[in-house]
């Protein structure tokens, strides 16, 4: 016998399925292959926060009100990030990747899923200190246009600057971190010279295609939100965007191990999840 709770659960999951279908059809954003337990948590959180009685009601509202959809999009876009997040990753890039990038006259770097840009500016600082910035073109993309707007400003809350400074130092930073920004009452604004070679743009890894051939892709804590099939698809997209000999830097719990592309890559630092494309 099916209990009331089981039945109710089944209905909620069906409503969620329909909601994601509706979002895809109406707005073009495709969350159907995201980790479902994660999407469900975010959607349930959103409807309880906004006192919406059930998912079907949410669906009705967001189909009729783009503002409501934008709010949900924000809920589904995870923007937990920091400058020089996992300093050991940046240290490994300095020690194991930079030397090879220096052999190119011109390099392109893609931050896929850059959120509010903290890691993009971190990388720009690293390139600057390694003498690579002036020959670099940096693409920083995210599916959420709102966070791209924020990233462009290069302005971050001053609250975290102590942690960022410590991260910077641990990452092998060579200068005084405060030389890279000026502080106002509650914000720090990064030097415009750091953003002159950065193009910020909206790009959706799930629904958009290849737009450039690059020497390095940095995409940290983006794949974990996708199910295994979608991770594989997105890794294929990254693979097609990367030159042979190029580098892929993922988040500390992300791997190419389960994907089709793994045979074409070797880990140059398996703990820091930095891979090199060995053949096309």
């Amino acid at each position, binding site marked *: 016998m099916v209990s009331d709770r089981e039945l109710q659960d089944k209905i909620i999951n069906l409503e969620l399925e329909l909601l994601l279908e509706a979002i895809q059809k109406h707005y073009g954003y495709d969350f159907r292959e995201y980790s479902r337990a*994660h999407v469900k*948590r975010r959607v349930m959180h959103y409807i309880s926060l906004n006192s919406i009685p059930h998912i079907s009601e949410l669906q009705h509202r967001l189909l009729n009100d783009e503002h409501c959809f934008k709010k949900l999009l924000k809920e589904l876009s995870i923007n937990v990030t920091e400058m020089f997040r996992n300093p050991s990753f940046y240290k490994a890039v300095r020690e194991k990747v930079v030397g090879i990038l220096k052999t190119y006259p011109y390099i392109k770097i893609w931050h896929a899923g850059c959120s509010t840009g903290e890691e993009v500016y971190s990388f720009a600082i690293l390139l600057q200190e390694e003498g690579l910035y002036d020959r670099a073109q940096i693409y920083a993309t995210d599916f959420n246009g709102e966070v791209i707007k924020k990233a462009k400003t290069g302005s971050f809350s001053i609250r975290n600057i102590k942690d960022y400074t410590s991260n910077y130092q641990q990452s092998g930073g060579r200068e005084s971190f405060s030389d890279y920004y000026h502080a106002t009452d509650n914000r720090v604004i990064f030097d415009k010279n750091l953003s002159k070679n950065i193009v910020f743009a909206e790009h959706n890894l799930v629904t958009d295609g290849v737009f450039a051939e690059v020497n390095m892709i940095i995409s940290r804590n983006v794949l974990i939100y996708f199910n295994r099939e979608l991770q594989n698809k997105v890794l294929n997209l990254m693979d097609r965007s990367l030159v042979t000999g190029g580098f892929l830097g993922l988040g500390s719990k992300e791997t190419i191990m389960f994907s089709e592309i793994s045979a074409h890559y070797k880990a140059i630092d398996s703990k820091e999840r930095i891979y090199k494309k060995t053949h096309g």
Partner: protein
Amino acid sequence: MAERFKYEAIVIGTSAGGLLTLKKMLPALPADFPCPIIVVQHISPQSDGYFIKMLDDICSLQVKEAVDTEQIKSGTIYFASPDYHLLIERDHTITLTMDEKVNYSRPSIDVLFETAAEAYGEKLIGLVLTGANADGASGLLKIKQYGGCTIVQNPEEAENPVMPEKAIRAVIPDHIADINEIVKILVKLCP
């Protein structure tokens, strides 16, 4: 005759004092223990996971850090990674996320318990051990609401009684017991 009821997974949440308690409890489980165990232990984001290796060395069951998208299998004890939430999907695979902290914690016990309740329903055992905050209490309630079995370490035995006490306040657990007793209950519930 109806098929004999079987539990399919155990979830454990613990914080301050948890490591010592797990070190006492997990090695006592036999090598043929049939249920996978998924553990959230609050730990510093910088932790290098040495305790996982240490526990693996002294347990009959395999102890490992849970990997994103992997299938949960019996004979294994999975630990949540420092600084990531661990969620369980309905197909019994692992999802890791970097969402905001819940109850000031990442990984959060509530996040594990709530998603596990939805994935395993009544075939889940939830266990709250020693700890110094309220994480896990509302997750344990959800496990109860979904028909699962709820167990809380006796607060008098717990190195830090706050977490067990908060859990007991949120839900009347099926068992409140000392660690030695909890091991016996688990072995009995999962033959």
